């Protein structure tokens, strides 16, 4: 896993455009803050500042994390990587975890832009809750990205799907607009999207009121992350077994 971490850091040095979300995240902060300020007297600045964090994290984890396998394929190292005696999933997860941790930098950046450049009245009221939620969210993002990686091994054009699932997940996860505003029939679906638990908790960590059931809600993020991780590891094992036996690894 450590080898994966080092490899990903080298990759970042070679391709600085990988840090693209660090450029777009402040712009999203501007967009959302402008909308809520234009919308009326209700102060929804914390909503506007939280949403870009998820957008940036999603990009880092899903696009770069998910692309870990695809870049291996493009550089024709996928076969060598799979043939190596080390665990394929461990190296991939190490790379993805690095990507996700780098993605957490966006939180600091968005916070600085929102709070000090755009003068948004947001303050961290529950710092421990915020930290715990961010860590749990990063783990859940990495687990979801690992799942995407499995799909990348299986299907060459899976990249198109990565492009497609962002906004459906943002809506279902209530990263800006709480799930309570979605139609009733969609709300149960949101409960199995870890973003909905994360977004509620991050917003709560900026609110003055105490946060009920915080441990349970963080536990739900971790539970969903663990479920994703288990499915992803199983899928990777199964997919690799299949393509090894059919000899189709480089052809898919």
């Amino acid at each position, binding site marked *: 896993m450590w080898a994966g971490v080092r490899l990903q850091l080298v990759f970042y040095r*070679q*391709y*600085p*455009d990988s840090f*693209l*979300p660090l*450029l*777009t995240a402040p*712009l*999203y902060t*501007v*967009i*959302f803050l*402008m*909308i*809520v300020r*234009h*919308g*009326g007297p*209700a102060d*929804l600045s914390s*909503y506007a500042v939280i949403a870009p964090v998820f*957008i*940036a994290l*999603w*990009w880092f984890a899903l*696009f770069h994390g998910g*692309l870990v396998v695809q*870049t291996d394929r*493009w*550089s*024709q*190292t996928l076969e060598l990587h799979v043939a190596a005696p080390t665990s394929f999933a461990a190296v991939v997860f190490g790379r993805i975890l690095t990507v996700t941790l780098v993605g957490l930098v966006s939180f600091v950046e968005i916070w600085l832009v929102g709070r000090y450049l755009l003068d948004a009245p947001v303050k961290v009221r529950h710092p421990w809750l915020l930290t715990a939620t961010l860590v749990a969210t990063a783990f859940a993002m990495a687990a979801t990205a690992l799942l995407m990686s499995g799909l990348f091994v299986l299907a060459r*054009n899976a*990249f*198109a*799907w*990565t*492009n*497609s*699932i*962002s*906004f*459906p997940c*943002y*809506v279902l996860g209530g990263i*800006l*607009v*709480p799930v309570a*505003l*979605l139609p009733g029939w969609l709300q149960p679906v949101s409960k199995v999207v870890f973003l909905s638990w994360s977004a509620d908790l991050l917003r709560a960590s900026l609110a003055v009121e105490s946060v009920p059931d915080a441990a349970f809600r963080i536990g739900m993020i971790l539970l969903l992350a663990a479920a994703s991780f288990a499915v992803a590891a199983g899928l990777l094992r199964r997919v690799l077994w299949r393509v090894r036996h059919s000899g189709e690894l480089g052809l898919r």
Partner: protein
Amino acid sequence: MSALRIMRYSFLSGATDYLAIYTWRSWLGGWYLRVLSQVIFFALIGKLLRAEEQTWFLLVGNAVMLAAMESIFALNLVSWERDSGTLQLLAASPSSPVVVFASRGSYLIVDGLVSSLGALFVAGPLFHLPLPWPRILLVVPLTLLVGASAYCFGTFLAGLLIRSRGLNNLVVNVGIVVFMTLCGVNLPLAAYPRPVAFVTQFLPLTHGLVAIRSVLAGDLGAVLPQAGLEATVGLGPTVCSTRRCARAPLPGRPPSDVDGPGQIGADGYRSVTAVTA
């Protein structure tokens, strides 16, 4: 070969490339679901603010934005050709690279139009947006105009960035979010500081979006002037691209210039069309 024939074949080859990525099923269940969700995501902010007018404003702005967004992908055209090893062949062909590039990615305008209208006419009724018949039909050519104008802008930038391989993806993604920020997609132009509002007059999407909002509001007198401005904004980059290529045609350059440093397979990374959100 006549220019029209080149354009036809270029369009068909580009569309065939796209059809290799999506079938109509995967397009509906993948890309269309994404763009519809994107429009719903922004419209829901209006609902959060309990402001129906703002909900509609956000819905229309973000639906039309899709036409511009897909057209700006044209900026990646040179990278795509380079990655598939066809850039040198196109550069070496006797036809004008402007004609080839302008037509090869023009399927993006069609795709953007379908995405945009598909999102508007599905999300609109969900949020009770009035779609007055028959003047709503004017939205179709106006959205096409927005897509074409943004496409011209995208191909112009693609020409400028032909030697800056690593910048394409960056410029596409930042460009899309800048358009979302500045072109009146989420806020009326009057709400911007005056210097910002002035700059937006020279960007694609701004005037086309005003024209579409005017159609919906029933202010038909404003439609034609705004459509004219949108077309002018789109034509400007096209003229610049044509002149630039006429001055320094691609086939005259050394192959290393066209292909750029770092071949696919050697550096193991190729530009991809991804949107940061």
